[in-house]
């Protein structure tokens, strides 16, 4: 009964966030407009589709990472996956410019996936305690360092680009929800989300068992090495396609899974679909809030809103983690 109430609350929240984003926009002159406007409908729908797809992808990546690493603070942003994808795209953009061309939009996702996977690999390699067990605190610290280094690499690449390319890359690097997304890129994010939800719902018991720790998961029959590689691959692809579409966004991938667990329970049977819904709702809400903030004509990067709202959430989770809410 409680879980049914949680599902109702989550669906209602997601619908409310989508509707809010559909009804709020800024005109070209920066004037705030409420209500349905047929002239701006395609832009608003485009923004909702982008936010829904990217938010769901980031939250699913966070859910998978938190379960595999048994770390409530894990997320694509905290572990440097978003930063890795950003740095890889920045490097590829620079290389393409040096070669006299430009990086195709479709290639951003593939290049970003390599960067995200590399960042996660470095985090896992350096975030292990003696004996090979994953150290939750060490992992987060490694992620902070990787994210900082990746951010520096991206900044360096931006600096070396000509002004026009530099400003486009910088705007993307702040994080924004495109109102007219590239169709192929949007399609790849939606496809990644759909495949992950379907796959997650078919192996939810394995994902639950991975939360018990290496020895227990193995003794229950989970092929741990293969399952881990799959989670690394899927979470890297999710983070990469979301980052290619909207730029690096903080904390959606952290808060989404926790919101889903709080409402529909911690078993992946429910939390896979729940995290996708919660992430989509959070990014729609953040983009609506961005439009409502009367700064720069409502054109603040949504990444700023995500960081401002998500930072305190991270600190709250850090406190709860210190109190032993999620013991590895």
């Amino acid at each position, binding site marked *: 009964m409680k879980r049914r109430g949680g599902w109702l609350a989550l669906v209602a929240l997601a619908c409310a966030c989508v509707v809010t984003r559909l009804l709020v926009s800024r005109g070209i002159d920066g004037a705030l407009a409420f209500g349905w406007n047929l002239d701006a409908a395609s832009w608003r729908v485009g923004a909702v589709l982008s936010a829904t797809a990217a938010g769901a992808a980031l939250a699913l990546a966070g859910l998978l990472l938190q379960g595999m690493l048994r770390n409530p603070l894990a997320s694509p942003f905290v572990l440097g996956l978003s930063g890795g994808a950003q740095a890889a795209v920045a490097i590829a953009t620079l290389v393409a410019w040096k070669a006299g061309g430009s990086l195709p939009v479709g290639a951003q996702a593939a290049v970003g996936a390599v960067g995200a996977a590399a960042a996660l690999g470095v985090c896992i390699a350096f975030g292990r305690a003696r004996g090979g067990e994953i150290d939750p605190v060490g992992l987060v610290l490694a992620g902070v360092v990787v994210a900082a280094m990746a951010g520096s690499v991206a900044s360096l690449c931006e600096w070396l680009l000509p002004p026009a390319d530099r400003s486009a890359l910088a705007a993307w690097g702040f994080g924004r929800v495109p109102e007219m997304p590239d169709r192929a890129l949007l399609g790849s994010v939606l496809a990644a989300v759909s495949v992950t939800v379907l796959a997650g719902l078919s192996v939810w018991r394995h994902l639950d068992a991975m939360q018990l720790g290496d*020895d227990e998961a*193995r003794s229950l*029959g989970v092929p741990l090495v293969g399952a881990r590689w799959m989670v690394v691959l899927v979470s890297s692809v999710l983070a990469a396609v979301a980052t290619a579409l909207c730029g690096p966004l903080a904390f959606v991938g952290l808060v989404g899974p926790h919101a889903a667990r709080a409402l529909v329970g911690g078993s992946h049977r429910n939390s896979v679909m729940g995290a996708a819904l919660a992430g989509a709702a959070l990014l729609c809400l953040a983009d609506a809030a961005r439009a409502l903030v009367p700064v720069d004509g409502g054109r603040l990067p949504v990444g700023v809103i995500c960081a401002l709202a998500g930072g305190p959430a991270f600190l709250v989770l850090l406190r709860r983690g210190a109190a032993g809410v999620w013991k590895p």
Partner: protein
Amino acid sequence: MSVHAHGLHVRLGAFELGPVDLQVQASAVTALVGPNGGGKTTLLRAMCGLVEPSGGTVDVDGQAVSSLAAVHRARRIAFVPQRPAVPAGLSAREVVALGRLRLGASVAAVDGAMAAVGIEGLASRPMHALSAGQVHRVAVARALCQCVDSTRLLALDEPTSALDPVWSRELARVLREVAARGVCVIVATHDLAFAGACCDHAVLLTRGQVAAAGPWSRTATAASLAGLFGTPFADAHGLADRPIALPRW
């Protein structure tokens, strides 16, 4: 139906276990006893195929554990770790049901396992809201839920470390019942009263080597335990149906 370790050797950093040659009897409870760092947990994990041996093999019914596919290993071996994890948001019942991960869902098996360790009332409670002892009982129930006709080995690492005396006694009863079904039950423990009351056989381990192995009453004597731990032991009478050697305070 027994579990054999042949020349088992494990290297974990600076620590080395073995070579160990050991036969764990079916239909009996065997205790691994020894000082801290003696190799009990490493031997237990190696026997369950959870750590890669650097030499030797562990055979279950003549098949090397290391050659078993994950699903076949899960059908033959159940394991309870020293410190069971507390997964985020999962309820006690959801964790117990994971024991059937590779065996097919069974409500009756989950109910039976939870009843065996008295956690029926905790079924819907989230794991992070349970005490350490309750978490341990959930882990034992999960392993019991995994025990089916094909199960040959049930291994538990310090299963009584967080239990009160009543549930330690209940656990001894449950383990004896599992062993009576033809399963090799092996327990790494420092709880000598529990081991003395529950176990048929003892394996004394120190510095990664088996110092002695055999029937409990002949192996875990006051003299042998005094030599093993380097402190005086004496026989306590009246705790169980046989004297139990306990450290002298």
